[in-house]
């Protein structure tokens, strides 16, 4: 009776809605669950092919494989190599694919496939807290002097390891190299020279190898990249252009020191890469990722598949309830039985719409005919409903069997309807008929069916199914909306018609 303030209620509801939206956005941002169903995500399929000559001895082949490559997330890895034992090992940050076989002879081919998703927020390149020690470089004269001169020259124009590296690359790449540069490059490659120079200058530097990804390329080889350690992270340079950072189409295959390929028991080994750009549903990516890093703890995909399909249906119900709220509170459609339309809609989802409507109408009509006889028996309510339930089951079985005999498999779908709800519907409609007449039956029956169809359309839409299952937190928003609807005191749409004669009195 008291009129307490509604502000706390509105604030709480608003927070509920905001919380739901925030959680959903978080899920979208951090786990990459797409907002829309059927969103496709590009995936790079990169295949490393190893060829070597086996000597007829026990063989161990070990290939360095990508580990936290900046700009990419690994979706799956797989090796194709009949007869070989295969394992992925990790030793001091050096991630390797290892094939082993007791005996192999002649030319051998091994494949390593990995699927990578371009990730815009690069997983932070393993923040190495402790600064690596620069590699000891020993240079002989006159290279040592030339190196020092170059380092001095570049050093005078730079302030940080990064700028030093940039200057050195510029010097080595200059179109008119001076004597020192020429000397240094005369018997050493550019990347090795840079590696030596930087480490010589006491800046930790290493050589990484990258792959430029282009759709449908084959027999590619790795390109060297220079990485230097500056203020906590490894900074990558393209030694050929001086470009800093990893271009989005470049996959750093090997970042750790250590060889790309080791073969014991064979010779003439080679690695070639081929790649393919594919698109797969973004959801599949999310699921695979969740599986691989246990991030999916909050996701319903962790459940057994059987339970998942049950939840799928269950999580759609709030949408149906919302539809009923909207239809009754805002539109003002009369239904017989408040949530009967939602349950009918659930059945429609399983039977599909038209067969569902046909089955529903025929069961209710037959039931009404039988109920007409029941009402003359003056049974008590409980036994009347119970009788109806039994009759409804008879009718459904009858329809299914007859439909099946006549070759309509759709007749079977009638079994999806909740029998008890059907019995109650028949009871209500029949009472309505006796008391209010056929007109009211048409109004309420039509209203119920209309709401059921709308609820069905909403619940069976791919978007609703996608959102309700992948963003369970959005149900907080639905809940908030229902709570707010419960406070709606405005006119219903149907009232704008009902009260229209009032215009006369204005």
């Amino acid at each position, binding site marked *: 009776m008291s009129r307490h303030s509604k502000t706390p209620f509105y604030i709480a509801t608003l927070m509920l809605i905001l919380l739901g939206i925030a959680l959903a956005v978080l899920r979208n941002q951090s786990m990459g669950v797409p907002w829309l169903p059927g969103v496709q995500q590009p995936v790079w399929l990169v295949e490393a092919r190893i060829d070597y000559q086996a000597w007829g001895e026990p063989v161990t082949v070990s290939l360095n494989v990508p580990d936290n490559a900046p700009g990419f997330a690994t979706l799956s890895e797989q090796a194709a190599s009949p007869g070989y034992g295969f394992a992925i090992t990790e030793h001091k940050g050096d991630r390797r694919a290892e094939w082993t076989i007791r005996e192999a002879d002649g030319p051998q081919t091994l494949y390593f496939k990995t699927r990578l998703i371009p990730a815009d927020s690069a997983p932070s390149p393993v923040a190495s807290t402790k600064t690596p020690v620069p590699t000891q470089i020993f240079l002989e004269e006159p290279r040592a002097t030339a190196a020092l001169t170059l380092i001095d020259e570049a050093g005078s124009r730079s302030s940080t390891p990064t700028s030093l590296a940039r200057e050195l690359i510029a010097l080595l790449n200059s179109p008119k190299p001076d004597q020192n540069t020429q000397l240094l490059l005369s018997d050493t490659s550019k990347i090795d020279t840079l590696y030596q120079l930087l480490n010589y200058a006491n800046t930790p530097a290493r050589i990484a190898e990258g792959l430029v990804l282009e759709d449908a390329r084959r027999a590619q080889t790795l390109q060297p990249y220079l990485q230097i350690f500056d203020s906590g992270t490894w900074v990558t340079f393209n030694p050929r252009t001086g470009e800093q950072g990893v271009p989005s189409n470049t996959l750093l295959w090997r970042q750790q020191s250590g060889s790309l390929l080791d073969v014991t028991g064979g010779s003439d080994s080679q690695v070639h890469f081929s790649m393919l750009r594919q698109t797969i549903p973004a959801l599949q990516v999310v699921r695979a990722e969740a599986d691989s890093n246990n991030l999916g703890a909050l996701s319903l995909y962790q459940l057994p598949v059987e339970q998942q399909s049950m939840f799928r249906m269950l999580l759609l119900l709030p949408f149906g309830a919302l539809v009923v709220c909207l239809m009754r509170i805002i539109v003002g459609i009369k239904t017989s039985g408040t949530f009967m339309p939602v349950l009918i809609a659930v059945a429609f989802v399983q039977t599909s719409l038209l067969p569902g409507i046909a089955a529903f109408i025929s069961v209710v009509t037959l039931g009404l005919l039988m109920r007409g006889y029941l009402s003359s028996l*003056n049974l008590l309510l409980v036994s009347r409903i119970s009788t109806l339930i039994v009759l409804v089951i008879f009718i459904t079985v009858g329809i299914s069997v007859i439909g099946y005999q006549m070759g309509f498999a759709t007749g079977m779908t009638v079994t999806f309807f909740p029998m008890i709800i059907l019995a109650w519907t028949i009871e209500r409609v029949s009472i309505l008929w006796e008391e209010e007449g056929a007109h009211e039956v048409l109004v309420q029956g039509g209203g119920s069916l209309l709401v059921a169809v709308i609820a069905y359309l909403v619940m069976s839409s791919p978007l609703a199914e996608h959102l309700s299952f992948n963003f369970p937190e959005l149900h907080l928003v639905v809940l908030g909306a229902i709570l707010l609807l*419960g406070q*709606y005191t*405005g006119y219903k749409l149907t*009232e704008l*018609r009902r009260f229209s004669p*009032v215009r006369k009195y*204005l």
Partner: protein
Amino acid sequence: MIKHLEKVPVINKLKQRLFTDWIKPSQLKQAGILNMNKRNVDYIARYNDRSAYPLVDNKLKTKLVLKEYEVSSPKLLEVITEQHEIKGFRELVQKLDGFAIKPAKGSGGKGILVITGRDGDAFVKPSGSKVDLADIQRHLSNILAGLYSLGGSPDVAVVESLVRCEPMLANYSYQGVPDIRIVAFKGYPVMAMLRLSTQASDGKANLHQGAVGVGLDICTGEALHAVQFDRSIEHHPDTGQPLNAIKIDDWQKLLVMASRCFEATNLGYMGVDIVIDEEHGPLLLELNARPGLAIQMANGTGLLPRLRAVEALRRPHFTAEERVAWSMAHLGAASKPLSQPATEIEASEPVAVGA
């Protein structure tokens, strides 16, 4: 071209059905029409205590409680609670001409059997058709089994004396006794209408079944407008009587009766149904904790300004007579200050208290 012309009337008709029979929310607001959602949230939920519902949902309880508050209702003849009492019904009705049997927990006219007289062994209904004792006994048994009560719960049958409608009003109604619905808000009668049964409503005074609603001026008890199925009419569809000349006698007495029900039930927002008996004058038939909204159509005006005026009262009146005096002074059709801001009503409030 010809085709085009042919289509026009059809299209126009459709257009009219689809587009012209509507009213803007702003217009409804202007008219102060109370709508279903607002009634439920802002009035019923706020002013009607749940605990008072059983009292009004049970006609027997209503009758007994209201007796203590000097509100009279048709004389209670018998309450039948057990199946075996039904056999003795013959002795009971031996000396009675007319009576009405109702399920205590019924609503909307369900299960009401009105007997106006005897014809030998048979009983005569208002429509003239006859039933025999066995029919009545089966009807009683159905009532006890809960056939007419909400959710089918077991019920009791109430037998009360027949209301013989005062002839002037009876003229207007087609079979069945007309009743007067008064909406009382915090004990203030705020709106009233007379309900006349019709052939369409099957002799029951239920508006949604097609009874005629005639709005009554709270100040005078005179007819304002008449509606059937929410649409305006001038004459009773069956009796052909013009409906604008009706005036209820002893109007203030009726209002005081309605107002007293507030003290008896503590329901802030309710509908009070009163019939006028030839012999005993106004009698309370039943109370309703969820009165309908059609009364506004019959009155040609909305409830909201009146409800707000009562809500705005700083010092409520304590007796039914005072409340009725205030209502008659401020809520009548002639006193039109209600479309203006509520502050004006407050300004004139002390005068009303004195009245």
